[in-house]
């Protein structure tokens, strides 16, 4: 794991020996084919197929290794900054592993990362991302930009492309240079800047509510409610999302946590207040 991660822990820290050896071997071997780097791979003929056969619930429901999955996360930009809302359920096949997972990582007071997909992959690599962001701050005496932070994660997962990482994340933050910014980064290596993203098994349900009510000119209160309501819609219909909703608001002075809202409780409050979910018997 570390040999790949080390490649992205900043150019300055590459080892002296590698540099010197590279110079010397260039003389020895003539042409250095830098376009075909090699990375450590397990000694199986087709590692990606092996992984799929043993862990992919969709292609093989009888597989023995169940990776924790399932989520709805969303983030959208509006006049007053960014709202980030996530659920908190983790499932392993049909088993609800936890209803209280924290799917937002606080990278620094101005940067948040959301987690969807494989829980372990997200937790590990986003914590690692936090380390790299901190190192950047110490070296450059300046907070890292959202573009650079998301690129560190994007480049890292690209190295592991095809090897079974499962991550759909949003890197959200505010810097003076960029303003409020959201980057969607996934384990295919996709990295997109955008204003609205919903990620996870329940994303389509969240998009339904979010897209129909979204406006750039929402107030902070309206936007937070919209985020919460979109996740609620997803937890209602997606079996793999639920538990509670965590809300964040990112402003020019950093992110603000807006509480943990248990779905079981607020569902009934919202059903009564909005007069919605009328097919559910009160």
């Amino acid at each position: 794991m570390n040999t790949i991660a080390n490649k992205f822990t900043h150019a300055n820290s590459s080892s002296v020996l590698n540099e010197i050896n590279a110079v010397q071997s260039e003389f020895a071997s003539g042409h250095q084919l830098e376009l075909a780097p090699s990375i450590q791979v397990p000694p199986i003929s087709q590692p990606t197929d092996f992984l799929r056969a043993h862990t992919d619930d969709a292609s093989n429901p009888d597989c023995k290794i169940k990776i924790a999955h399932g989520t709805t996360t969303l983030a959208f930009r509006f006049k007053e900054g960014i709202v980030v809302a996530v659920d908190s359920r983790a499932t392993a096949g049909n088993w609800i592993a936890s209803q209280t997972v924290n799917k937002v990582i606080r990278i620094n007071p101005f940067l948040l990362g959301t987690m969807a997909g494989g829980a372990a992959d997200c937790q590990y690599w986003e914590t690692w991302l936090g380390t790299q962001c901190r190192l950047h701050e110490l070296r450059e005496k300046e907070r890292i930009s959202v573009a650079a932070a998301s690129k560190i994660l994007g480049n890292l997962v690209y190295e592991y492309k095809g090897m079974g990482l499962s991550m759909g994340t949003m890197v959200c933050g505010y810097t003076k240079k960029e303003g409020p910014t959201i980057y969607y980064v996934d384990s295919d290596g996709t990295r997109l800047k955008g204003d609205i993203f919903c990620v996870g098994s329940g994303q389509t349900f969240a998009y339904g509510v979010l897209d129909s009510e979204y406006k750039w000119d929402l107030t902070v209160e309206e936007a937070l409610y919209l985020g919460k309501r979109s996740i609620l819609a997803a937890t209602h219909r997606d079996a793999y999302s639920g538990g509670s909703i965590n809300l964040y608001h990112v402003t020019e002075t950093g992110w603000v946590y807006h509480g943990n809202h248990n779905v079981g409780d607020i569902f009934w409050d919202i059903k009564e207040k909005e007069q919605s979910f009328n097919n559910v018997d009160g």
Partner: protein
Amino acid sequence: MSGYDSALSIFSPDGHVFQVEYASEAVKRGTCAVGVKGKESVVLGCEKRTTLKLQDPRITPSKICKIDNHALLAFAGLNADARILVDKARVEAQSHRLTLEDAVSIEYLTKYVAGVQQKYTQSGGVRPFGIATIIAGFDSNDTVPRLYQTEPSGVYNAWKAHAIGRSSKTVREFLEKHYEEDLSDEQTIKLTIKSLLEVVQTGAKNIEVSVLKAGNVIQKLSVDEIKKYVDEIEAEKAAEAEKKKKPRD
């Protein structure tokens, strides 16, 4: 002493790494390079060796190298070593643009070049780079001029005005005497050329000058433009000399 100077990886008993100090000697024999910061500009000037008769001056590489759109590097010492270091700096500048989606700051670039020079003072089988560099430019979206210098040991410093290479001590003393804060572009160029003329006796054809301004503006002065400044400076010197003579009679 002689026992401790042949290998790079050992200290002498009194704390010297002689190979690094000998590298500085190589720098002192290289052609002079000067950098001066003004209010809104940085000017780099270099001494050009007299071209031999059959040498083609139009395509012989200059000593002031562009690292990126906003940064220039001038050096003193072994030209071949400089070529390698300049290329590393160029690659790092692009690599930074790729991974951080932003241009390098001048300090970052300097730190990198100095870091490479330091790496080569602490391993076996290699010798230090025999060059000192002056790195000048502006950070992106910034109007503050930056000027840094690195040396073979890997030390780097920020300067308001500095000179390296042959007779750099003379030039530095001249700069200390005549440097003022917030010089205009014209005054900065003039000061650079004037300080170079202290050591380059043969005039405009052996000087090259580049001017940097905020917003990726890099301007290389032509021989005629330099000659204009030189003539102005000579005229002023003559006038000064005249004034000094007069009270005598």
